[in-house]
C-alpha cells in the first residue's frame, strides 16, 4: 500500500464538489496541493482554508480545459513535477440543446475529452517523476454505454475512459499508475432532495475516500458505489436489439 503523505498533488478542475472534498482529505493527510481551475475567487477561498486548517502549502493556478493552447504553459508554470495528478473537471451540458446546437455539443466533447487528453498528454510526457507517480482520471458510468438521454456526454466520457485505459497500459512500465474513477450519481451541494435514486447517489466525501483508497492500493477502475458495477454490468450486457427500444 502506498502512503499519501508529503506528496505534491495537482488537482485539475478544483472547483467541483468532488475536487473540494478531495483537496480537504489530501491536505489533512499532509500533502501540498496545486489547485487549478477557472474560478479564482473560489479557489483562493479553498486554498486559504486548507492552509489555515492543515498548515500545508497550497497554491492556486488558473486553468481552463477548453483553452488547449494554454496547457503547456500552464504545466510549466506549476513548477516542480507533481507526484499525483487528478483530472476532475467535466461538463455535463445539455443533451437536447447539444443535439441541435454545435456550440453546446462541442463544449461537452471538448471539455470532457479533448481538454482532458491535451493536459494528460503533457503530464504523461513529463518523465521527471514518472516513477511512483499516479494519474487519476474522473470519468463516468455514462461512458460505459451510450444512452439516448446523454450520449454526447457519454461518448466523450467513453473516449476518456478508453484513453485512460491506454495510458495505464503505456505508463505501467515507467512506474506511473493510472486510476479510472466512475462516480455515478453524486449529490450536488446547492439543492437538497434532487431526484436521483438514493441507493445510487454518493456524496462528494465518499467519492474522495474511494479515490484515495484507489491511489493507495493501485486500483485500476473504480466504481465509487459497488452497486454501480452491477448496474452497469447489466446495462452493458443488454443486447442492442433490445437496448435500442429502451428509454434510458
Amino acid at each position, binding site marked *: 500500500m502506498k502512503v499519501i503523505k508529503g506528496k505534491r498533488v495537482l488537482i485539475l478542475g478544483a472547483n467541483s464538489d468532488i475536487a473540494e472534498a478531495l483537496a480537504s482529505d489530501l491536505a489533512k493527510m499532509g500533502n501540498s496541493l496545486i489547485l487549478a481551475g477557472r474560478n479564482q475567487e473560489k479557489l483562493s*477561498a479553498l486554498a*486559504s482554508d486548507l492552509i489555515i*486548517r492543515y498548515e500545508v502549502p497550497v497554491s492556486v493556478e488558473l486553468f481552463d480545459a477548453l483553452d488547449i493552447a494554454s496547457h503547456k504553459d500552464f504545466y510549466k508554470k506549476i513548477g516542480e513535477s507533481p507526484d499525483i495528478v487528478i483530472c476532475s473537471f467535466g461538463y455535463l451540458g445539455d443533451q437536447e440543446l447539444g443535439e441541435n446546437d454545435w456550440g453546446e455539443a462541442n463544449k461537452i466533447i471538448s471539455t470532457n475529452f479533448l481538454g482532458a487528453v491535451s493536459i494528460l498528454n503533457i503530464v504523461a510526457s513529463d518523465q521527471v517523476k514518472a516513477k511512483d507517480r499516479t494519474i487519476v482520471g474522473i470519468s463516468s458510468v455514462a461512458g460505459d454505454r451510450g444512452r439516448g438521454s446523454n450520449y454526447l456526454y457519454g461518448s466523450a466520457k467513453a473516449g476518456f475512459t478508453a484513453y485512460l485505459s491506454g495510458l495505464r497500459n503505456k505508463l505501467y512500465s515507467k512506474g506511473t499508475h493510472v486510476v479510472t474513477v466512475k462516480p455515478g450519481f453524486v449529490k450536488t*451541494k446547492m*439543492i*437538497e432532495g434532487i431526484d436521483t435514486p438514493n441507493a445510487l447517489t454518493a456524496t462528494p466525501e465518499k467519492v474522495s475516500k474511494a479515490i484515495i483508497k484507489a491511489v493507495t492500493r493501485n486500483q485500476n477502475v473504480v466504481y465509487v458505489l459497488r452497486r454501480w458495477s452491477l448496474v452497469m454490468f447489466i446495462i452493458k450486457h443488454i443486447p442492442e436489439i433490445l437496448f435500442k427500444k429502451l428509454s434510458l
Partner: protein
Amino acid sequence: MISNWNNYPNVTAEKTNLISPSEIEKRYSNQNFIMRGAGKSYGDASLGDRICSSLEYNKFLFFDKNNGIISAQSGVLLSEILNVVIPKGWFLPVTPGTKYITIGGAVASDVHGKNHHLEGSISRHIASFDLMITTGEVIRCSKTENSDLFHATCGGMGLTGVILNVSLKLKKIESDRITQRQIKAPDLDSLVGYLNEFSSYTYSVAWIDCLKGGKGFGRGIVMLGEHSVQNDLENKPSLNSAPENQLNIPFNFPNFALNNLTVRLFNEFYYQKTYRKDNTFISGYNSFFYPLDGLGNWNRIYGGKGFLQYQFVLPMEGGKEGLVKILGRINRRGLGSFLAVLKIFGEQPEGILSFPMRGYTLALDFPIVRGLFDFLDELDKIVQDFGGRIYLAKDARMKTEMFLNTYPEIENFRSILLKYGVSTKFESLMSKRLSILNSVID
C-alpha cells in the same frame, strides 16, 4: 421536516445550501428566504418556507497568528475556529454554551457567554463582516463603516441579509486549561451575593436548583473561571484543542422520563456532589464552557415532543425581586427544569435587537407539556413588568405584543432596513410571528 435544537416547531421547508452568493441571489430573486446555520437555536428564528443553510459556506479566509484576527465564511463552526486558534495561543473572545454553532449564527443572535459582565457579547469583538442585502449588493459593515447596518445585523436574527464572512478579534491565552472556582450557595440571596461579589472573575455563572423550596429556595453553585496562566500549572502549559470524549443519546427518551421527581433527584445529586463549600481546581476548556457538548444529541432527553428554553433578562433594579417571583411560580407549579442557569449581564451598547441588558438573566428548559405555553405567557407578564425581555434565539412562542413592548428599538431597526432597501426579503417564521418586519414595506 425540519426543526431546530428543541424540536419545536417542526415544519416543512425547501432547503438549499449557500455555495455561491450570486447563485442564491438569482434563485431567490423573487422569493423570500431565511438563512440557517447549525440549527442550534431553540425556536423558529431560522425556520421559514425557504431555508438556505450556510453550513457548506465554511472556508477560513485569513488568520493573523500574531495579532489574533481571524476571518471566515459564515458557515464555519466555533468548534472549527477553536481547533485552528488554540494551538496558536488564542481563544474565542465570547462563546455561548455550545461550540457547535456557526459564526454567522453567532453574529445574527449576538451571542453572549459567561464573560458578558466584563467583555460584552460577541458583537463587541467583531472587526467587520460582509452582508449581502436584497439587491445582491455586498456591504462591508463594522462599528465605523455602515455602523447602523452593523448594529441592526448583530442580534438581527438574519433579517437584514446574508452574512457572508466575519472577521473576529481573538483573545490571547497561555494555556488550554481553565482555573475554576465553585462555591456552593445555600439560598438565592447568597447566590446572587456571590455573583456580585466575584464579578471581577472573567467568567461567572450560577446553576440554580429551581425545584428547591423553603429554606433552600434558590440554592445553587456559583461557577467562576479564568484561563489558566503559567503560574497556575505544574507542567508547561499546553495549547491543545483535542475534543472531549463524546457520549451520545441514541434515541428520544419517553416523555415520562423527565419529570418533577427525576429532576429533583438530579438536582439533589448535583448540589451535593461537591461537599466542600469553596473549591478551586483546573479543568479543560471543554468541560467548563461546553459541558453539554460532551453529551451528543442531549435534546433527545426531552422526548420527541420537544422542549422550550425560556431565557429572560431583568434589569438590575428590582431584578432580584423579579427573580424571586418567577422562581416562586416555577417552584409552585413544579415544572422541572434540568438546566437552570443564572448570570449577571454587563452593559450592552451594541446591537439594536441584541438581548442582553445590565441585569440578571436566567435560562430554563421545559419539556413541552399541556399548559406550558399559558404558563410561560404568565411569566412573560412578570418579565415585562420588571422591564425585562426574552432572548429571541431561544424563543418559539412569545406573543407579538410582548416582543414589541420589550424591544423598544424595533422602529429604529425597521427604519434601517428601509434605508438599505432590505424590505421583507429575509423572512422567518419568527419574523412573521412577532411582526418584526411589519411596516417595512416594499
